[in-house]
């Protein structure tokens, strides 16, 4: 599917939104995506998580390439 964002959710985020995989219409940048996500899943407004675009953690607002793989990552707790 063109112009789609593939989203993977993990840990507490996946639990709160009740899904581990989502597809959304393309958003221009990460701010726009976060806004869309929070509107769709209000529980995310009170959940701490970071975004990764194509497996790289981002900080600040970043452009989203077409067909990007986005991941919603709650604070890491391995080990």
């Amino acid at each position, binding site marked *: 599917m063109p112009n789609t964002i593939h989203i993977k959710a993990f840990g507490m985020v996946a639990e709160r939104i009740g899904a581990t995989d989502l597809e959304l219409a393309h958003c221009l940048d990460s701010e726009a995506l976060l806004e869309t996500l929070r509107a769709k899943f209000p529980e995310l407004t009170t959940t701490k998580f970071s975004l990764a675009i194509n*497996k790289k953690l981002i900080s600040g607002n970043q452009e989203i390439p077409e067909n990007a793989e986005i991941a919603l990552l709650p604070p890491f707790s391995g080990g």
Partner: protein
Amino acid sequence: MEKERNPKNIFVQGAISPEAVAKSIANHASKTDIGGHSIFLGQVRADEKPEGKVIAIDYTAYEEMALEKAFEIREAIFAKYPLTCMHIYHSLGAVKVGELCLVVFTSSKHRKAAMDACDELVERIKAELPVWGKEILDSDNHVWKVNV
């Protein structure tokens, strides 16, 4: 001879057996330039939470990203310390209290490099790998593990 290093799988399904650790130690007997090993073993602790007592941790990971990150960390540590070898194993899925969930194993000619590298690796693994622990409680509840 320059060694070629590629991303390795660090994940193990379920607990890491003490026998596997012993075997890993034995595998180094032929590497006679090693003078010291440092081994960190992470064990699942029966924490008391307000919601109940921890009986196991169920680990999940963003595996592809975690392996890329582990490789990056591995390369950085190899560049920083004169190590002979380095092994990292992390559990996925359920690990019961008392069982091992993380092994970090470094070897070098002299102890200091192995010990410092092992310490730094453990810290970086806990802080930077996209892995999550769900603490399963005896009350049929669960809480999400928080790294301190």
